[in-house]
């Protein structure tokens, strides 16, 4: 009797091991979890990630289960949420903001069987951490072209969130593209020190408008800067950020950068399902379809639209790089020589303004 029980237990154990082996090769059902920095109704960054999550659900139906948590603050809270998700049976966790970089790696160390995917970061300290990003600065070059041609006051503005490389790329690309089509252009940068705080974003936009700025680009997540620009009654234009923000068409929203995460999410969850999943580091742009340029409205003249579309197409074709030398840094030192393009390493660690931008970068 005792022997029989023992045998049965051993058989069950073997069965479990076989199931474990099958997991490495592929999975029948994947629980994909998403951590968002804002509410899914922000109309921007988080909304777009959530669209990606919904696309995964649509692509695989019953084979995936989606779980997400909104408005997770970066820092200690994020670690708690990630741990909870990993314990709750998530097979793959997408952490969708730069600030989750360290919590993601810390929790990944404790759960080697769970896959972690961190957006916009650069740390992959464990084999189960992958990173993915989009070359938003390519879209900024298109916006800068429109801004430089459209501004009447020659003052353009940028609402920065935090002085991290991704945002620095955006500011510099926006300025360089505007300068190229309009040598007299001046750029004002306001740091909001938040990803999502509509009151503060609106106040920042208002401060820029009060200073005579008539084209505003925002690197924060809500539609508040566009709502503020709309109050100016057509005198001020802006761009949809992260999402199309089509509610503000045709003006003040004259174009937009759309983060298109859906193909990546579908691909990664699919890889986990069929067992081809590997650690990776993806950084695609306009050419890869991760960065889409939203419809350029009739609020801008045809030649501006044509110029912006040319920049977009040239970047997609690889014939134009938004950071092409000669470019000097703000302090006058050389960065890129004539004809040289910025290496990815420089972009991922960018912590300076290019020559011509005034003001200091907060530390």
């Amino acid at each position, binding site marked *: 009797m005792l022997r029989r029980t023992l045998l049965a237990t051993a058989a069950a154990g073997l069965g479990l091991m076989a199931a474990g082996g099958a997991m490495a090769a592929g999975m029948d059902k994947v629980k994909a979890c998403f951590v968002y920095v804002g*509410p*899914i*109704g*922000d*109309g921007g960054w988080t*909304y777009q990630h959530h669209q990606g999550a919904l696309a995964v659900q649509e692509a695989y139906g019953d084979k995936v289960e989606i779980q997400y948590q909104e*408005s997770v603050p970066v820092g200690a809270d994020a670690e708690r949420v990630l741990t909870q998700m990993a314990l709750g049976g998530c097979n793959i966790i997408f952490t969708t903001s730069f600030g989750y970089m360290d919590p993601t790696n810390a929790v990944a160390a404790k759960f080697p069987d769970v896959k972690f995917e961190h957006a916009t970061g650069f740390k992959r300290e464990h084999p189960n951490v992958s990173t993915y990003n989009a070359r938003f600065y390519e879209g900024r070059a298109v916006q800068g072209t429109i801004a430089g041609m459209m501004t009447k006051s020659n003052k353009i*503005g940028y609402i920065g969130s935090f002085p991290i490389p991704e945002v620095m790329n955006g500011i510099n690309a926006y300025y360089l593209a505007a300068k190229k089509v309009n040598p007299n252009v001046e750029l*004002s*940068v*306001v*740091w909001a*020190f938040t990803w*999502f*705080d*509509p*009151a*503060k974003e*609106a*106040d*920042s936009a*208002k*401060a*820029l408008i*009060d*200073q005579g*700025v008539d084209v505003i680009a925002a690197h924060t997540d*809500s*539609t*508040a800067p566009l*709502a503020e620009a709309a*109050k100016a009654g057509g005198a001020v234009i802006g761009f949809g950020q992260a999402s199309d923000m089509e*509610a503000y068409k045709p003006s003040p929203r004259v174009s937009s950068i759309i983060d298109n995460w859906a193909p990546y999410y579908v691909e990664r969850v699919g890889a986990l399902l069929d067992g081809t999943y590997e650690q990776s580091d993806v950084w695609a742009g306009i050419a890869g379809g991760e960065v889409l340029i939203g419809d350029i409205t009739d609020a801008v003249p045809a030649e501006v639209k044509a110029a912006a579309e040319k920049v977009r197409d040239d970047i997609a074709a690889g014939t134009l790089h938004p950071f092409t030398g000669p470019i000097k840094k703000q302090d006058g030192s050389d960065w890129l020589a004539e004809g040289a393009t910025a290496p990815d390493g420089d972009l991922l660690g960018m912590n300076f303004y290019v020559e011509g931008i*005034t*003001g*200091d970068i*907060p530390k």
Partner: protein
Amino acid sequence: MDFGGINPVILIASLMVASVPILLAALGELVTEKAGVLNLGVEGMMIMGAICGFITAVHSGSPVAGFVGGALGGAALSLVFAFVTQVLLANQVATGLALTLFGLGLSSLMGQNYNGIKPPLTGALLPGFLREIPVVGPIIFGHDWMVYLSILLVAAVWWVLKATRLGLIIRAVGESHEAAHALGYRVRLIRLGAIAFGGALAGLGGAYISLVRVPQWVDGITAGAGWIALAIVVFASWKPWRALIGAYLFGGITVLQLNLQAAGSRIPVEYLSMSPYLVTILVLVIMSSGRGRAALNAPAALGQNFHATR
């Protein structure tokens, strides 16, 4: 005309708008405290006003209805405070703090499905040609009706407290509830009215944030404005016109720090961001240094519960 790249006319015009929420909330709290009740739940009442006003405006399509809804929402929450402190005689400080936490949570729950919706717009009150007048135009004629209403309310509160029988009764209740009771006034009923008025104005201020200044709903939208309003009441030494000055000062610093950034000032952002709060602390220290409670003009019965023994 410009100082350091900043146009003072535009600065004044925008600080008047930025100050409306804290001005309204401070004015309401001033009346509440004049009646001897310390309600620290201003932040909670403001955010309830913000969400109730937003929901009303979105569904009715009318900003005016939205402001009424906001005032009702703030007043409704303040009645919870009134019940607990005036009927159950609970500690006012603890109840007020709890009210803030309750308001933040409840508003977040109510606002679940209202993220990313646009409320109907509140436009400027006066015709455009008046706004074109240099200097005076943007400062005096360029605002929406709530800005004018907030200033009218300051005048009204000042006049009522100073010159009417109602004001005298409110002040009597706040200075010595025993004496007011002995004279036959219903202390707790009068305080209940003052609390509800304070709640309504805080709600109105909150609705201004979600309907005009942002205009959008998001969790925690008031972002500490209620605490600044409380500081303004002390700063104003319980005088309505000084509350107006205080609100414009605080609102002005907030606007100025963003404008300085936009103008490319070399002052580090961090100092500018904390300056409103530094000024709050400084003012409170100066106001309370070496002077008695009487000089500070605080109502003598502030924060004390009243229970009729006879």
